[in-house]
């Protein structure tokens, strides 16, 4: 189970970035790292030892496949992750245009 724990450590690194960094770009990077680690974890649960990719070709009609259902779900999740990251970066670009900094402490001071 060391492999699940490594995946969770990747999640914790992303969480550390979100909680402790002051730069907006680094916070966005932390969110994206958390997202990637969760995608990887779900795909690992669907993996079957000795299975092939779930594509039916001639001669492999009844081969042992890995679980196709998590793969289909994560396909959706990856694309939505791109959309949310793009939205976050758009907000960051606007904040930089208005305040001239990515530092969230300075942005907070300039309020009002």
């Amino acid at each position, binding site marked *: *189970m060391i492999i699940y724990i490594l995946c969770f450590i990747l999640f914790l690194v992303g969480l550390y970035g979100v909680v402790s960094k002051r730069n907006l770009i680094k916070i966005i990077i932390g969110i994206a*790292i958390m997202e990637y680690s969760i995608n990887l974890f779900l795909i690992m649960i669907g993996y079957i030892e000795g299975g092939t990719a779930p594509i039916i070709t001639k001669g492999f009609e009844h081969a042992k496949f*890995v679980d196709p*259902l998590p793969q289909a779900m994560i396909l959706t999740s*990856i*694309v939505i992750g791109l959309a949310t990251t793009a939205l976050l970066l758009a907000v960051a670009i606007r904040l930089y245009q208005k305040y001239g900094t990515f530092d969230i402490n300075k942005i907070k001071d300039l309020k009002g």
Partner: protein
Amino acid sequence: MELYLIIILVLMILGSIYSLNATDLLSAVISYGIVGFGLVIAFLLLQAPDLAIVQVVVEVATLIIMIAAIKNTQSKIPKMEFKPKIAVYYAITLIAALVFILIFDRATGCLSQFGADTMRMAQPYIDGAQHTKSANLVTGVVLDFRAYDTLGEATVLFTAVIGVLTILRIKGKKDN
């Protein structure tokens, strides 16, 4: 197989730690690319070629958007000077991470081992594959069995694109 995955995961963890601690935003973004492209190789090792293709495209797009966001910005981050108080914070963080990992280890104890032969939900999808006439089972699930899910995904994607266009629009409402 599992060894390769462990090596790639360790590389991804090192890349993410460097990315979060870099003093330069450009090197932070580029070492974030290590995480994304390591994930591509991990997907290939886990027999998920569709996901690997999608992840390559998404990662390249994310890197382009990030570099577009940080270009023409003052991208140096002042380095934090070391104080004894910070060491206490690091110790607390490490202890909290250890507690989280222990809880996670207990929580995943009920899951089956990595690579165990368990088809919990997917057997009906595999058996019904000849009805979809699709050679690829993943696209069969995405576009046939769960087409409404995909429709919802397209809705989310277009909503996000409209949001980005609304935020980045130069012309706003005229101030009265």
